[in-house]
């Protein structure tokens, strides 16, 4: 089973990297790009565990390790084989 974890900055936290990427894209001739927010993406392989067990474990890992809850939020997706 594979898990996908997305970690993004909270909407209230300034993202200077995303803003710079947006400006660069606009400068490359894409004026329709209104804004960009940059985040992190983790692909995690899990063995010997079903989805019902894996989800709470992944939520805990995402909260304790993969994200910093002060500035970031996360989303966990599970892909069945």
């Amino acid at each position, binding site marked *: 089973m594979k898990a996908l974890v997305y970690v993004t*900055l909270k909407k209230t*936290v*300034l993202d*200077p990297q995303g803003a*710079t990427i947006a400006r660069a894209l606009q400068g490359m001739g894409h004026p329709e790009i209104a804004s960009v927010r940059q985040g992190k993406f983790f692909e995690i392989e899990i063995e010997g565990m079903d989805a019902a067990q894996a989800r709470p474990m992944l939520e805990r890992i995402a909260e304790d*390790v993969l994200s910093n809850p002060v*500035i970031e939020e996360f989303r966990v997706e599970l892909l069945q084989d």
Partner: protein
Amino acid sequence: MKFGVVVFPGSNCDHDAWHAAGRVAGHQAEFLWHNEDTVRGADCVILPGGFSYGDYLRCGAIAKFSPVMNAVKRHAQEGGLVLGICNGFQILTECGLLPGALIRNRGLNFICKPVRLRVETVNSPFTCAYEPGQETVIPIAHGEGCYVADERTLDELEAEDRVAFRYLDNPNGSLRDIAGILNPGRNVLGMMPHPERAVEPLLGSAGGLGVFHSLARCFAERTR
């Protein structure tokens, strides 16, 4: 007074901190390796600057799980002194000993230069040797030093007189110009500027020496 300087893989200001506390300020100072679960009787633990564990994941995110941090947390909970400088400050916010977080500088650049600071409180073991409101010059060297926290936390820090240092010319976008903060017990200080790099006039400023003098004075009073 005994200082313990933690060495993580990727620390690069550990020797500067050891030099400042030991050679310049004249205290006993030794290194603490990241995988020992003890602070070896240190009165003050320094978490030095650098790029612990390569800053992988987030600055300080991996360091907070190292064995020595269990010992540092116990030390702090027992009222022991902890000084986190730069990456050390990032580790202290990651492990929850200090509130808030440090994110990418507003201008995206890594900034390495002397900055002007104001000592905002002298009511702490780290700042008691400064004059109230004293202005001083201490260098910064960071890419992720923009201090953020929610409004309630910021109000609380100010109401409890826990902002230790403020930037006079905010270099990185830190909310309310915050350069260093204390925990509620006032025995843990995190700051982005490097006091250990400003301890001798030859280095351009001795403005950081006050931190080491303060610690010595406080320690002498505690043990009297």
